[in-house]
């Protein structure tokens, strides 16, 4: 067992964990972040994407002990001041989800892309989301949501 400290969505906790516990598992069971999903458990589907020190990372192929002292954001931390993140809103507007199992992973993987993107082509958007698999909705709505969120952000930026 090892002592570690994680800050998750702004809340810092000291924990004692077995080294073999995956970050996704600790986020779900020690922090109650059930929006962190296991799809494949080997890096192939993107379902478990969270931000570690601001950068997207697959939490199924990271051990919690590796992230000792780091700051983690999950889908639960995305709404600000009671408002959904612009990409979450765009997912709703464009019907970019059905069952929603894959959605937190898409949002976490693509939020940084939306926040810095200017005028990506469809190919660039599809490259950016290539690590995430959706098993039920298909990808057109997701591409549209990403495009909408970037457009929305640019409109706000230029105001």
């Amino acid at each position: 067992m090892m002592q570690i400290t994680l800050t998750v969505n702004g809340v810092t906790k000291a924990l004692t964990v077995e080294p073999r516990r995956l970050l996704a598992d600790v986020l779900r069971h020690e922090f109650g972040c059930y929006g962190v999903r296991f799809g494949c458990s080997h890096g192939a589907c993107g379902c478990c994407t969270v931000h570690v020190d601001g950068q997207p990372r697959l939490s199924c192929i990271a051990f919690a002990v590796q992230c000792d002292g780091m700051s983690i954001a999950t889908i639960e931390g995305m709404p600000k001041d009671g408002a959904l993140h612009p990409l979450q809103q765009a997912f709703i507007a464009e019907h970019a989800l059905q069952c929603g199992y894959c959605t937190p992973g898409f949002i976490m993987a693509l939020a940084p892309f939306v926040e810095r993107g200017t005028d990506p082509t469809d190919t660039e958007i599809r490259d950016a989301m290539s690590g995430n698999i959706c098993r039920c909705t298909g990808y057109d709505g997701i591409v549209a949501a990403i495009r909408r969120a970037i457009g929305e952000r640019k409109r706000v930026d230029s105001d």
Partner: protein
Amino acid sequence: MKPSAFKYVRAGSVEHACALLAEHGEDARLLAGGQSLVAMMNLRLARPSVLIDIGRLALADIAIGTGSVRLGALTRHRMLIEHLGLRRMAPVFGETARYIAHPTIRNHGTAGGSVAHADPTAEIPGLLVLLDGHVDAASQGSVRQIQGRELFRGAFSTSLKPQEMISALHFRIPAGRWGGNFLELAERVGDFALAAVGAVVERDGEQVTGARIVLLGAESVPVRASAAEASLVGERLTESVAAQAGAAAAAAQRCYGDVRASAGYRRHLLSELTRRALLTAYARAGAAA
């Protein structure tokens, strides 16, 4: 889908990591980006009893010298795409790295880990062999160089000793006018390649003065198409010369077949990708100042 139990130690330096490797022997594994190893542990294809985390060591640096590029072992794949010096001096690094996995994985996967993991169609091992590279293999009290061509022994197998850690990778860049290109075909964006080809062409006016070709998907390790390379020197690299070199490079390969592609299809891909990569590299060499 949970790994078996292990002891976790965070290394504070290369020396510390090497001392830990010496102490724990074959039961220990280094953990760099974890993008291959943790997946293998989840599937219980790997069950190390000690994990030595080198992920926080300050080894993620890129240095460009005259005729050489040096990557610290923890250089992330993404840095190869974004590094301004590399984009100017040797854009083939970024072009190659774009084929590795997906953006999130490229944030964390490392050059050293990729080479040590030695997947048969991994891109960075391909670049190492293409650019006549070598690695620094550190062990307690010493560092030896291993040439890229001697490093890869077979699928997921290298000539690194269990007590050795890669600390840096070195690549040789041509001095004169040159161009490079890397092309691959995979079933989906980010998947491991069915076949891939890297080419470097040096030229003086219209004439090829040097050529290097690496093939991935021919054998279980990256191989150079030496005869095809030699046949190009002194030539003008026309469409038909490139097509002949591609055909010759591929015909010399045994190639393997598996559920994803037959040996014949892989040979066809290698021939076509070689033709295209040579033409692009030659054109880029012509455009280079």
